């Protein structure tokens, strides 16, 4: 059986596990080297999720309660592509975020900003045949954290994607253009490659902005592409 491996990420475009400015990484990053694993059938397959699983209402975070949440309504949309710019269709996209005041609906969030009874901050959807996804939500607030003195997270939305294989699983965060906190955030700045970092910042988008309703932000996500040639009995020829 021939296996077509997935490509490894380009050098410098992914964070190292240990990033000392992000204090929580100090005791949780592996100290030993990772063992390079050539892809087998176990890594080039992965969970798939059917339309039946997906709650169609889960892509509109402003309509999950009796009333509208507080804050600025926004449309967050984009495409999920592979490195060859091919759409990744029917893949699950999950998001979670703070409310407009910068507070998560989570028991461990001790920030003294108000919860919003009309906002849970959780959504999911499947991409369409063109790899497109779209969420309606509110712009999340910035919030303080304890990483260092006067530490504040820039506004962000957490994204989780599966893609076609175990090897393509990705969790990331989307940021907003012009956020003054970005240069100071150790999580945003965890990656060496500046261009790779800047791709985490969404783009204001007139095309998806709805008059008198909501501003549009576009955030395209790229998952690992596939090696061009199959590997006979998946040997060790995978590019490092």
């Amino acid at each position, binding site marked *: 059986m021939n296996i077509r491996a997935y490509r490894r990420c380009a050098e410098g475009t992914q964070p190292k596990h240990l990033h000392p400015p992000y204090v929580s990484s100090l005791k949780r990053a592996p100290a030993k080297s990772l063992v390079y694993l050539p892809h*087998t059938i176990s890594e080039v397959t992965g969970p798939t999720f059917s339309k039946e699983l997906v709650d169609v209402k889960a892509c509109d975070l402003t309509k999950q309660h009796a009333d509208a949440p507080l804050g600025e309504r926004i449309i967050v949309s984009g495409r999920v592509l592979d490195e060859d710019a091919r759409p990744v269709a029917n893949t699950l996209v999950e998001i979670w975020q703070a409310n407009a005041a910068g507070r998560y609906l989570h028991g461990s969030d001790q920030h003294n900003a108000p919860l919003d009874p009309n906002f849970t901050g959780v959504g999911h959807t499947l991409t369409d045949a063109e790899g497109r996804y779209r969420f309606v939500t509110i712009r999340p607030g910035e919030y303080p954290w304890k990483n260092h003195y006067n530490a504040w997270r820039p506004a962000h939305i957490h994204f989780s994607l599966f893609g076609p294989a175990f090897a393509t699983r990705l969790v990331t965060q989307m940021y907003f253009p012009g956020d003054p906190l970005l240069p100071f955030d150790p999580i945003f700045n965890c990656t060496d490659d500046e261009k790779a970092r800047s791709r985490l910042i969404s783009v204001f988008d007139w095309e998806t902005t709805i008059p008198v309703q909501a501003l549009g932000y576009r955030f395209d996500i790229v998952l690992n592409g596939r090696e061009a040639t199959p590997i006979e009995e998946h040997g060790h020829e995978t590019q490092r």
Partner: protein
Amino acid sequence: MNLQATTSQTVGPFFKIGFSWLYRDQLAGPGVSGERVSISGRILDGDGVPVPDGIIEIWQANTHGKYAHPDDEQNKPAEQGFTGFGRVPTDGEGRFHFSTIKPGRVPGPNGKLQAPHLEISVFTRGLLRRLITRVYFPEEPSNAEDFALNLVELERRATLIAKRIEGRPGELKWNVKMQGEDETVFFDC
């Protein structure tokens, strides 16, 4: 290739609100064939402190060694209702638990079968990208010839093999040690 894969970012401390709708701690329903196993353990940090804000995802083949995925073209039976996906959070003491069936052997490099294994992703606050590892099964003769286990130094292989719990058949223990002594083997994948 003309695009580059998006940069990974940490799940942060509050991911449970986003992930809980898809928790799956029973991977195999009543009608699914295979040897039943339950696996429990803890995620521990470099100081041995339990990690309460962690999550484990599981990906595995069915008892026949077939994945529920279109790219698995093996002529082996599918199992109705078995997706092979699991997702479990850690509790306040860093513990996780899930039940499944022991997967069959799947093809590996050089025409050899791999030993039965689970593919594991670990996400926690503090991890800027997931950790990838595998769980193998105890007293499994094929472990000796498994290509991935053989990529690992002999003295570290035990971190990838679940242990039997004395007097509790079908119950296995497997811990994730993120750093330091007895650090779990993590893969670059």
